[in-house]
């Protein structure tokens, strides 16, 4: 059985992440929001603002996933350490920071007037932590890819 290329695996992972995010924002978030609105009618006015915020935060996530897909495409073509990939990885890191800051701000905005449910706080903190992990990974991979590209070019120009 022919083994699947690593780049194809990566594309599968990126695609799966896209599906997970879609389910999270399209199904889980509204369902959890409805449950909270029913259980705590005094804060049901927050349902739509929170849901819209979650949908807006999906935009940088999908941009980052699209950039990751393009990185995988370049890897598939044998062009792993291109300048474009260095830029894309840095952009992924920046977008992860943006999403992390968005949710950090949202947590603070809800925590100050004592509207933050502990369960929501826990989930959001986990998400923020993941965002900053992705950001660190993106920046680190960008630096490594840049250095690898320099070494590759030097190797190609060594006769």
């Amino acid at each position: 059985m022919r083994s699947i290329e690593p780049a194809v695996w990566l594309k599968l992972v990126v695609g799966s992440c896209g599906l997970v995010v879609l389910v999270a924002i399209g199904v889980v978030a509204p369902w959890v929001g409805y449950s909270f609105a029913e259980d705590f009618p005094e804060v049901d006015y927050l349902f739509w603002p929170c849901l819209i915020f979650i949908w807006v935060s999906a935009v940088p996530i999908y941009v980052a996933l699209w950039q990751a897909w393009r990185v995988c495409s370049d890897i598939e073509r044998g062009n792993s350490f291109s300048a474009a990939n260095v830029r894309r990885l840095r952009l992924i890191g920046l977008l992860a920071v943006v999403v992390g800051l968005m949710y950090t701000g949202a947590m603070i905005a809800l925590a100050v007037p004592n509207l933050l449910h502990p369960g929501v706080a826990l989930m959001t903190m986990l998400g923020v932590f993941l965002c900053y992990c992705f950001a660190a990974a993106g920046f680190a991979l960008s630096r490594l890819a840049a250095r690898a590209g320099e070494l590759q070019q030097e190797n190609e120009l060594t006769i």
Partner: protein
Amino acid sequence: MAIVVNLDVMLARRKMTVTELSERVGISMANVSILKNGRARAIRFSTLERICEVLACQPGDILEYSADG
């Protein structure tokens, strides 16, 4: 790059074409072009040895240091 590779002079002296040089040294035409155009970052001793063997010359005959480079 301050190190200049002067292949043309030795090729003319030995009445050899670039194609023949690439075939006899065992490097591609693209690499020979990189050498001639000064885009090479480094040359392996093994490659230099083969070039000198094929052109019957010394490394100093084809390598020149230019302070302006």
